[in-house]
C-alpha cells in the first residue's frame, strides 16, 4: 500500500515535469534541455526559502517564478541570439548548475523538521493526504494548461510548433510565442522541483540530472499508448505516461534492480517506446 502511494506521489510530481516537457517537445517542437537544470533550480529556491522562514506555498511560487525566468533566458538565446535550440538548452542547463550551487550555498539542503506544504496546517500529513494534495495540484495545473492552449494566445503557441510561417502570416511574432512557451515549460518543471524537495525533505544539486529523459519518456509513452483514444488529451496522456514510468522504474528498483542500472533502463525504455511508436505508425500507413 505505502509502496503504491509513494509511486503515485512521485509519479504525479513527474507528471508536472511531463507537462513541461510536453509543451517544449511536443507543442513547440523544441527539445529543451534547460529542464535538466530548472528542476533543481525549483528545488533549491524552495529549500533555501523555506529554511529562511518563507511560507512553503510562497516558496513554491518563488520556485515557479525562477523557472519561468530560466525558460525566458533559453528563449532569448534562441530567438535573439539565433543559437540552435539544442545548444540553448545545454548552455542554460550548464549555467544553472552553478546558479543552483550559489543559491543553496552547499551541495544539498535537508528540510527535515522544516515546515512544508504537506504540513501547513489544514492538511493532514499522512501519506494519503499528501497524495491527494499532489493530485489536486496536478489536476489544477492540467486544467489551467488545457484552458490556456485553447485561448487565442495559446492557440498561436500551438501553431508556432507546427507551422511558424502561419503565425507570421497572421501577424504573430514567432519569437515571442516561443519564449512564452519555454517559460511556462520551465516554470512547471521548477515548480515540480519545489514539490519534490518538500516531499523528500531535501534538495540536492544533482537531483535534476536525467529529468529531460524522464520527461521525454513520459510524454512519448503517454502519447503512444493513448494514440487513437480521442478523449485523452495530450496533457492527460503525459501525466499518465509519467505515472506509468514511475510505476515501472519503482517496481524494478523495489524488486532489487541495482540503481546502477537505472539510467540504462531509462534509455532502453525510451528506445523501446520510440520503436513501438514507429511500428504502430507504419501499421496505420499500410
Amino acid at each position, binding site marked *: 500500500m505505502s509502496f503504491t502511494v509513494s509511486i503515485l506521489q512521485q509519479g504525479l510530481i513527474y507528471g508536472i515535469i511531463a507537462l513541461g516537457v510536453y509543451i517544449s517537445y511536443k507543442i513547440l517542437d523544441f527539445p529543451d534541455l534547460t529542464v535538466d537544470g530548472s528542476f533543481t533550480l525549483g528545488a533549491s529556491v524552495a529549500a533555501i526559502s523555506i529554511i529562511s522562514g518563507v511560507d512553503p506555498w510562497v516558496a513554491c511560487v518563488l520556485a515557479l517564478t525562477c523557472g519561468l525566468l530560466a525558460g525566458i533566458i533559453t528563449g532569448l538565446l534562441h530567438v535573439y541570439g539565433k543559437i540552435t535550440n539544442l545548444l540553448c538548452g545545454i548552455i542554460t542547463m550548464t549555467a544553472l548548475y552553478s546558479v543552483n550551487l550559489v543559491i543553496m550555498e552547499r551541495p544539498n539542503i535537508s528540510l527535515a523538521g522544516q515546515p512544508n506544504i504537506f504540513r501547513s496546517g489544514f492538511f493532514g500529513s499522512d501519506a494519503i493526504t499528501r497524495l491527494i494534495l499532489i493530485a489536486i495540484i496536478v489536476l489544477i495545473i492540467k486544467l489551467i494548461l488545457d484552458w490556456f492552449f485553447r485561448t*487565442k494566445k*495559446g*492557440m*498561436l503557441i500551438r501553431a508556432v510548433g507546427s507551422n511558424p510561417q502561419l503565425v507570421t502570416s497572421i501577424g504573430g511574432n514567432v519569437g515571442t510565442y516561443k519564449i512564452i512557451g519555454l517559460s511556462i515549460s520551465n516554470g512547471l518543471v521548477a515548480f515540480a522541483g519545489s514539490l519534490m524537495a518538500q516531499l523528500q525533505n531535501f534538495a540536492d544539486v544533482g537531483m535534476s540530472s536525467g529529468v529531460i529523459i524522464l520527461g521525454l519518456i513520459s510524454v512519448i509513452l503517454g502519447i503512444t499508448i493513448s494514440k487513437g483514444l480521442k478523449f485523452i488529451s495530450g496533457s492527460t496522456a503525459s501525466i499518465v505516461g509519467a505515472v506509468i514510468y514511475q510505476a515501472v522504474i519503482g517496481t524494478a528498483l523495489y524488486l532489487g534492480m541495482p540503481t546502477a542500472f537505472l539510467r540504462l533502463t531509462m534509455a532502453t525504455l525510451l528506445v523501446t517506446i520510440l520503436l513501438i511508436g514507429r511500428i504502430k505508425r507504419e501499421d496505420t500507413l499500410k
Partner: protein
Amino acid sequence: MIEVRKACQTFNKNTPYYLELFNNLSLTINDGDFISLIGSNGAGKSTLLNMLAGSFMPDSGEIFFDEKNVTRQKEYVRAKYIGRVFQDPKMGNCPDMSIRENLSIAYNKMKSFNLTRGVERKNEPFFMEQLETFKMGLEGFLSVRAGSLSGGQRQALSLLMATITEPKLLLLDEHTAALDPVTSKTVMEKTKEIVETKKITTFMVTHNLNYAIEYGNRLILLHKGEIIFDVCGEEKKELTKRKLLDIFTSSVPDDALSDIMAFG
C-alpha cells in the same frame, strides 16, 4: 495603393556568385488591381513577392502601403494587412489543428491574441457558409485535422484562411502549381470569385500562361529583375498566348526562347 520605389536587391555580395537582381525597380499597384506576374526562372518573381510581404528588406529603395512607408516594418507586423497563399498547401495551415481551429486562428488575425477563447462557437455558421462556397464538402468536417485533408482541400482552406479577414493585399505565390489540373482550376476560379466579391488587391505569381491571361486585370512580365511588359484593362483582355510569346521573344532576344518553352 501599394508602391515599390526604386528597389535594389543584390545577392551573394563579395562572392563570385554576385547577382544584381533589381536595379531601381519601381512598381505601383492600384487598389483593386488583380496582377498576374509571370517570368522565367530567376526573373525575381518570388523575390518581389517576398519583398512586398516583408520577408526581407531591399538593399535600398522603399515600399509604401497607402503612402505609409513600411520598408522597415517586420514581416509579422506588415502581415496584419496581407493575406498570403504559398505554393505548398502545407504552408497555409496547421496540420495538427482542426479546420475549425485553423479558421478561428485566421479569423482572430485582426483581434488581439489575448486570453479569451480561441474558438468561438458563434463564428461557426459563418465558417460553414464560407466553406460551402468551395463545394468540396469541407463544411461537414469542421472537426477534421487539416493534416488529413488532400492537397487541394488544404489549399482551399489556406485560401479561405488568407482572405477571411479581407486583407488589403493578397499575395499568391504559384498557389495552384502543386495541384492537379482540375483542382488547380477550381482553386483558381474560387480565387477569382473571392477577389472580386471582396475587392481585394491581388498580386499573383504564376507559371501558367493561360491563367495569367485569363485571370486578373493586369499582367506584368518580369525578366532578370526588370519589368519588360505591363498591360492592363482592355489591352490585357485582348492578349492571347501567341501575342504574349511574341512580346517575350522580341523583347528578350537571346536565351529567351528556351525559357519560354519551359513555361508555355
